């Protein structure tokens, strides 16, 4: 069955041939935009700064000689530059963003307003403690929610993103082992389907990574994992639900076995969105888990950050959690830092970051959590899982679903390139989706599936939005199965055609090299 709602026909040929060139290079609302270095000048500024009485310089002999080479734009030019550039981006605000494992859900604007309250946004991290009581209370409240939702013992709030949270968990495990005199445990077991950050984190902390195979149904090979446990194993890093979109049924059994063998269980919480409010990782024997506030709790991804990755800990690892953290003492909130750690927290592995973490993200996340409440968060995970299963079952007759027989999926649906025509790849499907007006799904991840396509619709999509997406992916999938050559050169309608990534890597151009125009002084 071929569904083509676009009106596009293969015989129309390459879209670019049908497009007349324009003087500007623009195509109506698709606007080209030059670099600030090409349109700005070193004589222009968009900021008026009040004068200050001149003073004799105290810069010593350190004053800057020569031009910096920075272009300036007036305010109207700057607003236009960044607005025009923004229109070359896809975003959740424009449509469904089905990136598996990334949880691109709607970002509520209330959260933005709350984070900008001067009492939070205009607050210095080293302000006297009595002047920041509301901020500490907010951190304390969010911590309470995170600990309760996960049924864990404590939470470290300072990690800056998911990978930083992984590092936090792994360092706590290392500190706990050293305290026990078992610093010789140097192996971390990681399933083949893990996020790339897992092995990178373990290696960064000085561990050796050993891969654990997956079963044919897409879950950890529990027996293989148990067989690998021993006196050299520090712990395991497991993602649950896993990156194939499946719940690891045996996690409790695995946790018990790891604990019995003297190791710890780290859970990658990137996929917590599937179970928040419905399943508590603490009930599954997890010792540490990071929570991506920018995934599960809706803080915006911002084109690549900032994130925030608080880590919840079991009782066994709590003493080793990093500094600083917030405590309530006699109705007053205090910050436990290096100075007071000795009495309160002697085994802490130390500080991971300057100051206290991503306050701006905490405010947004708490705003989201309070909005949903315990009942709403349960509905979040249910709708996320329902939407993903709806996508899976609506498309498994078009695309190969390698684990479609392994039971329901959780929050994401996994497909492979198995039934595409000879010479057609997952990349072609992805680029075809771009022409249909969608950001592609996660592609070529997890590595355990050939040509993986991982679709995570999230709970903030309506049924109508899902139906249109399913229709689009069916159409592109059918074209890839039929060997439609036009797909090989997609996208045809995006601001750019396929970009030459080989050239970019072979001859890296990573910065603007010429001077700013007009040149008043030599820029370099």
């Amino acid at each position, binding site marked *: 069955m071929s569904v083509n709602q676009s009106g596009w026909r293969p015989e129309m040929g390459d879209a670019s041939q049908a497009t007349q060139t324009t003087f500007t290079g623009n195509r109506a609302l698709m606007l080209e935009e030059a670099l600030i270095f090409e349109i700005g000048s070193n004589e222009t500024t968009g900021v008026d700064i009040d004068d200050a009485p001149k003073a004799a310089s105290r810069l010593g002999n350190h004053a800057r000689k020569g031009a910096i080479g920075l272009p300036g734009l007036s305010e109207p030019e700057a607003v236009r530059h*960044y607005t025009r550039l923004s229109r070359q981006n896809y975003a959740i605000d424009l449509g469904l963003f089905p990136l598996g494992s990334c949880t691109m859900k709607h970002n509520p604007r209330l959260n933005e307003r709350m984070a900008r309250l001067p009492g939070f946004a*205009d607050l210095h991290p080293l302000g006297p403690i009595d002047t920041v009581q509301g901020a500490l*209370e907010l951190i304390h409240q969010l911590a309470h929610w995170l600990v309760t939702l996960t049924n864990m013992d404590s939470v470290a709030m300072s990690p800056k993103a998911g990978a930083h949270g992984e590092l936090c968990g792994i360092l706590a495990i290392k500190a706990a082992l050293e305290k026990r005199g078992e610093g010789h445990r140097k192996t971390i077991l990681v399933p083949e389907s893990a*996020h790339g950050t897992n092995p990178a984190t373990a290696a960064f902390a000085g561990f050796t990574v050993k891969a654990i195979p997956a079963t044919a149904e897409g879950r950890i090979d529990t027996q293989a994992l148990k067989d690998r446990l021993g006196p050299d194993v520090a712990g395991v890093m497991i993602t649950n639900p896993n990156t194939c979109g499946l719940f690891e049924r045996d996690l409790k059994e695995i946790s018990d076995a790891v604990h019995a063998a003297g190791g710890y269980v780290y859970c990658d919480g990137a996929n917590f969105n599937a179970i928040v409010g419905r399943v508590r990782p603490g009930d599954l024997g997890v010792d540490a888990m990071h929570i991506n506030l920018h995934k599960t709790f809706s803080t915006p991804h911002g084109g*690549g950050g*900032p994130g925030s990755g608080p880590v919840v800990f079991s009782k066994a690892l709590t003493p080793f959690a990093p500094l600083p953290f917030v405590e309530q003492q006699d109705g007053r909130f205090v910050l436990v830092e290096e100075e007071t750690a000795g009495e309160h927290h002697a085994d802490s592995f130390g500080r991971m970051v300057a100051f206290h973490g991503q306050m701006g993200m905490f405010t947004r996340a708490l705003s989201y959590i309070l909005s949903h409440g315990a009942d709403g968060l349960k509905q979040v995970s249910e709708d996320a899982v329902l939407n993903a299963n709806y996508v*899976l079952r609506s498309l498994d007759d078009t695309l190969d679903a390698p684990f479609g027989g392994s039971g329901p999926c959780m929050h994401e649906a996994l497909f492979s390139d198995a039934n595409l025509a000879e010479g057609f790849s997952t990349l072609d499907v992805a680029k075809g989706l771009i022409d249909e007006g969608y950001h592609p799904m996660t592609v070529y991840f997890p590595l355990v599936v050939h040509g993986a396509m991982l679709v995570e619709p999230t709970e903030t999509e309506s049924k109508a939005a899902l139906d249109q997406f399913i229709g689009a992916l069916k159409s592109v999938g059918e074209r890839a199965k039929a060997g439609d050559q036009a797909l090989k050169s997609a996208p045809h309608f995006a601001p750019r055609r*396929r970009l030459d990534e080989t050239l970019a890597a072979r001859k890296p151009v*990573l910065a603007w090299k010429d001077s700013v125009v007009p040149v008043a002084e030599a820029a370099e």
Partner: protein
Amino acid sequence: MRYLPLTPTDRADMLSVIGADSIDALFVDVPESARLDGPVPGLPNHASELAVERHLSALAAKNVAAGSVPFFLGCGAYRHHVPASVDHLIQRGEYLTAYTPYQPEIAQGTLQMLFEFQSQVARLLGCDVANASMYDGSTACWEAVTMARRVTRKAKAVFSGGVHPHYVSVAKTMAKYTGDVLTTALPVLDAATDDDAVIAGIDADTSCVVVQYPDILGRIPDLRRIADAAHAAKALLIAVVTEPVALGAIEAPGNLGADIVVGEGQSLGVGLQFGGPYVGLFACSEKLVRQMPGRLCGETVDAEGKRGFVLTLSTREQHIRREKATSNICTNSGLCALAFSIHLTLLGEKGLRKLAEVNHAKACAAADRLAQVPGVQLVNESFFNEFTLKLPTEARPVVRELADRGVLAGVSLGRLYPGEDTLGNGLVVAVTETVTEEDIEALATALTEVLA
């Protein structure tokens, strides 16, 4: 439940397409012992937008916002005026709600912005190339130390006593687990920076020297001299900049021989935000780029020959190299990098230089006025917009007392170096363009009264 579009009818229809008789059937793989019957116990249910706004506004009202009082705090986070258009632009959904630009054909907005950001940062810091951002200055600093280890194949880092103590603390935490050897020192309340001690600490095993510029007390070290000494021992110089506005007035570290320059970019565009999110700056010379951590955006062409931008050199990164990656960083500070870049574009060369000049002039005026307070001594000879005062008594209680009088006077060294008696009387005062003459007078008056 205003963020959830599905209706009960939708849910029923979808379950029938799936062939499941209830939502519980989709959670069948969760072991029974871990299934909850209802919402997580002990937590409140959903709330209206108005109710949430009331709750959070009440918490915000318990804090003393910097803009509401005379304010002089710095030490790694600075209050600058951010033009209104910056916050407007970063809230455009196309930036705010986009992902990391892995599909470049529909992410040229973010990619071109990152290329511009990298170019601005490289020029500001005086280096060939900069990456697309790190979490913050402290983590960028540690990443630079590990990069120096990879480049030099040596593992001893010499930290100047002028490096922010939180940055040192982060490095100490990490070094416990990576085997790097760190030598660190406390700052000395003196006009001279510890350049001589740092140089004396360099030996054949040294991979890098880490120097903050200006340093934690606001003093400006002689980077050129330290760079020469480091290079003679085949070690790298890592310069740490916590106040990028300073580079509108003082020479860029890259132009003084620094091999890697890292920094905290919060001053431009980002705001104080009680410590985060901030934006880490990371720049180095072209020949070291393949050892760099983090994402890089590069120029290329598309199939029609049009200029475009992509993430590149990703064979350094975790999603390709896994355990052999240069760093585990994935999500960085994209939106803060955008705010930084827009603010710097609005300033331009001319605006940044003027901003730096005004900061310096106001700091000079404040230093002179505060040095007249009986018993107070100005420690610095050189400074940009931040300097250290030596009070006749312990500074920490003085700061608290001044806060009670409605003046946020600065950061006491007792807060940053608890238990270090030699530093307890130090007070670090930052003076940016946001400080008025009245603010300076208010601080001087209140300080006089408290010390009397």
